[in-house]
C-alpha cells in the first residue's frame, strides 16, 4: 500500500545503516574512551587539585571549545564568557533536543574525538552518562568550592558516587498554577492546602463549571515522578556502579496513586495527553482550570495561553502533611564536561562561569526565563521582585523560590531513564489513560524495569 519492494529494501537498509553507524562506536571497548587522546590526568591528575597557575596558563592559551546545548540564545552568556576570557573561543552548537541530543553525545563520546567539550544534560540523565563513564569528574577543577552556592537538593542532583559531574543551570520545583476566575466561579476561594482540600475543590469545579481542576496527562512521566518526589517516595536508586534500586510499586507510591485513581475514576481530573494542540486549546479555553507543574511553567504558560492573561495565579502544591510542606522537581538541566575533551580546565571554566558568575546566571532567569538554581539569583531582587501581569501582578518567582527550599534532597534516578519513561508510558500511563487500576500499572512498570535492568547486567535491588 505504501511502498514497493524497492522502497522496503531502502527502508531496511536505512535502519541497518543507521544501526551500523551508531554501533560502529558501540562495539569499541567503553574503557578506551577515558584514556583516549585527551587524558585529563596529564593536565593535573585526577587525585590532585588543579593549581591556580595551571588554571591561569590554560585560560591564557588560545583555545577552541565546542558546546552542545539546546538553550535558546545561550550565545549571550557565551559572549560574556569570551569577553571575560578573550583567549577562549567557544562554538555553540544545537544538535537537537532531549533524546536526539543525547544519542549524538553518546556517539561523539564513544568516537573519542571530534565531539563537544561541554554539553547540556538534564539532571535525570546524569546517572545514565555517569554509568557509561562519559563525564569528567569536576572535583579536581575546584567544583567542590561552589557547592554552597546552590540550593542543596539541586547540588545533590549533580553528584554521583562522590564525584561532581555537572554544574547546575536551571530547575523546576513543582507548584500549582490555577485560574482564579474559574475557582471563584466554582466557589473555591483559597488554593487547596492539602490533597483532601484539592479533591473537595475538584468536586466544586466539576459541579459548578464546565472545567476540570487540572489535567493529569497519562504520558507525562516526569510529572508523575515529580508528584511521587513531592510525597517523599523514593522509587529509584543507583550506587554509581552496578547496583540499581527499583521500587516504583512501593506502598508509598501506591498510596499516592490510589488518590489519583480515585480522582480519575470520579471524573474529577481529565487524562488528556499534553503538549499538543488539543491541550493548548484546553488551557486557553478554560477547559483545564489548573496545572500541577514546574517552576519553568509560569513563563511557558504565559506564552501558550496568552489569551488568558491576568486570570492565573500560582500556589504551592497541595500537601500530604500540611505541617511539613514538601515539593518535587520536574525538569531542569546542568552543564557537564565530557572526558574526551582536550581542554578540561577551559571546558570546566565555561561550564562553571556561565552558570555561576552573577551576570550570566541572572541573565538565564531574565532572558531565557529559566528558574534559577543558585542562591544568589534566587535572592536577587531583579528576579524575585518581578510581578508578571499574566498572574495579576503576583510575585510568582518569589513563591517558587520558597517552594524550591522544600524539595526533598534524596531523590535519585536510574541510569536508564529513556527506557524508564517509555516503559512507564506503556504500563502505568496506559492504566491512567484507561482510567483503570493504577496500582496494577505500577506493578507492571516495576516488572518491566526489573527485567530490563537484569537484562542489562545490573544487580537489582527491588523493594
Amino acid at each position, binding site marked *: *500500500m*505504501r*511502498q*514497493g*519492494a524497492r*522502497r*522496503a*529494501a531502502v*527502508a*531496511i*537498509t536505512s*535502519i*541497518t*545503516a*543507521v*544501526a*551500523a553507524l*551508531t*554501533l560502529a562506536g*558501540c*562495539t569499541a*571497548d*567503553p574503557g578506551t574512551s577515558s584514556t583516549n587522546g585527551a587524558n585529563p590526568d596529564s593536565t593535573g591528575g585526577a587525585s590532585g587539585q588543579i593549581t591556580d597557575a595551571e588554571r591561569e596558563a590554560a585560560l591564557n592559551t588560545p583555545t577552541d571549545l565546542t558546546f552542545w546545548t539546546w538553550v535558546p540564545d545561550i550565545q549571550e552568556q557565551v559572549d560574556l564568557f569570551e569577553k571575560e576570557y578573550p583567549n577562549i573561543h567557544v562554538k555553540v552548537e544545537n544538535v537537537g533536543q532531549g*533524546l536526539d541530543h543525547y*544519542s549524538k553525545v553518546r556517539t561523539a563520546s564513544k568516537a573519542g574525538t571530534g565531539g563537544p567539550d561541554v554539553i547540556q544534560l538534564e539532571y535525570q540523565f546524569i546517572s545514565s552518562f555517569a*554509568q*557509561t563513564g562519559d563525564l569528567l569528574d569536576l572535583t579536581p577543577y575546584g567544583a567542590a568550592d561552589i557547592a554552597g552556592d546552590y540550593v542543596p537538593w539541586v547540588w545533590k542532583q549533580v553528584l554521583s558516587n562522590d564525584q561532581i559531574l555537572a554544574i547546575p543551570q536551571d530547575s523546576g520545583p513543582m507548584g500549582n498554577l490555577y485560574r482564579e476566575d474559574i475557582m471563584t466561579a466554582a466557589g473555591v476561594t483559597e488554593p487547596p492546602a492539602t490533597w483532601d482540600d484539592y479533591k473537595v475543590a475538584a468536586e466544586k469545579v466539576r459541579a459548578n463549571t464546565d472545567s476540570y481542576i487540572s489535567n493529569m*496527562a*497519562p*504520558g507525562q512521566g516526569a510529572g508523575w515522578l515529580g508528584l511521587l518526589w513531592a510525597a517523599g517516595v523514593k522509587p529509584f536508586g543507583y550506587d554509581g556502579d*552496578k547496583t540499581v534500586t527499583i521500587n516504583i510499586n512501593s506502598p508509598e507510591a501506591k498510596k499516592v496513586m490510589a488518590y489519583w485513581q480515585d480522582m480519575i475514576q470520579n471524573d474529577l481530573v481529565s487524562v*488528556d*495527553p499534553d*503538549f*499538543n*494542540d*488539543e491541550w493548548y*486549546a*484546553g488551557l486557553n*479555553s478554560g*477547559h483545564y482550570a489548573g496545572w500541577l507543574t514546574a517552576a519553568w511553567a509560569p513563563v511557558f504558560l504565559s506564552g501558550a495561553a496568552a489569551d488568558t492573561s491576568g486570570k492565573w495565579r500560582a500556589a504551592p502544591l497541595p500537601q500530604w502533611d500540611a505541617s511539613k510542606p514538601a515539593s518535587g522537581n520536574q525538569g531542569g538541566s546542568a552543564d557537564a564536561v565530557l572526558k574526551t575533551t582536550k581542554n578540561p580546565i577551559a571546558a570546566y571554566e565555561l561550564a562553571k562561569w556561565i552558570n555561576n558568575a552573577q551576570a550570566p546566571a541572572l541573565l538565564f532567569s531574565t532572558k531565557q526565563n529559566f528558574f534559577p538554581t543558585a542562591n544568589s539569583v534566587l535572592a536577587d531582587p531583579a528576579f524575585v521582585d518581578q510581578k508578571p501581569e499574566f498572574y495579576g501582578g503576583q510575585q510568582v518567582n518569589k513563591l517558587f523560590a520558597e517552594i524550591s527550599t522544600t524539595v526533598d534532597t534524596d531523590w535519585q534516578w536510574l*541510569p*536508564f531513564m*529513556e*527506557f524508564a519513561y*517509555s*516503559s512507564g*508510558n*506503556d504500563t502505568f*500511563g*496506559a492504566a*491512567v*489513560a*484507561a482510567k483503570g487500576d493504577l496500582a496494577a500499572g505500577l506493578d507492571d512498570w516495576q516488572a518491566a524495569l526489573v527485567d*530490563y535492568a537484569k*537484562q*542489562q*547486567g*545490573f544487580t537489582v535491588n527491588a523493594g
Partner: protein
Amino acid sequence: MNNAIKRKQNLVAYGFVLPFFAVFATMFIAPLAYSGYLSFYAHKLVGGVSFVGLGNYVRAFQDPAFLFGLGRTALILLIQVPIMLGFALFFALALDSGRARGSKAARLLIFLPFAVPGVVAVLMWGYLYGQNFGLTGQISRALGLPPANFLSDSLILFSIMNIITWAFVGYNMIIMYAALKSIPPELYEAAEIDGAGQFRLAWSVKIPMIRPAILLTVIFSVIGSFQIFNEPKLLVEISPTGIPQGFTPNFYAFNLAFVNQDLNYAAAIAFLLGFVIMIVSYVVQLSMQKKEVQS
C-alpha cells in the same frame, strides 16, 4: 580477433555497471551484513559486548511487545488491506466504465492524498481526530452526540488504518486503472456481442484481465503493512499511551535502537521482520498464482 573484441566489450560493460555495484555493495550489502553480524551479539550497559548466537532471535519470539506488534500488523493485513483494495478496484472500474461524469477530476481527487507528504497527512488527521477541539469532536457535539475519542487506546489502531486507506487508495487505483486501459477493446466488443452488461463485463473480463496488477497491489500492500512507521511515530505525540513502544515491528526496532539503547536486539528484530515480509509475500504470491492456474 572476434574474441578480443568481445572481451573488450565485456570489460566496458563491467565498467558501466561498476559504479552501481560499488554503491550497492557499500550502501546496501555491507550495512546489511554488518547488522546481521550485530544481531548475534548483545551489548549490556554493565558487562559490555558478548556473543549470544541466536539469543536475540529466541528472545524476539518470547517478546510480547514484538508479537503484539506482529499481531497488529496481521489485523491491518486482514481488515485494512481488503477494504483499501476493494475501494481502489471499485474506483478504477467506475472511472474506466466512462459513465462517471468528471472522471478526470475524480481521478485526480482520489489520487491527491497520496501526493500529500505522510507527515503532513498524519498531522492533519491528528487535528481531525481531536476529541475536544478537533473537527470530528466539534461536528458530533454540534449534532448533540457524545464525541468519540479516535485517539484512545482502543480505537487508535483503526484510526491509523483509516489514515493509511485514505492515503493509498488513489495509488492502488492508478495501478489498476492503468492496467484496465491496456485491455484490448476487441474483448469488450466481443463481450457486448455476447450480450454482457457492464457488471458482467467488469466481473468476467476486466477483473481477470488485470489480475497481475491486482496481485502487484496486494504484494505492495503486504510489504507496506509491515513497514508502517510514520503514523505511529507521529501520532504517539497525541496518543502516547495508545501507541506503545512495540506498536508495529518497524516502530519497535526504532525504539529499541534509540530509546532502549539495545541496537543488537533492534538489528535482530529488523532481520526477523525482513524474513517475515519475505515469507508472507511469497505465500501471498504463491496462493494467487495457484488460483490463476485453477481458473
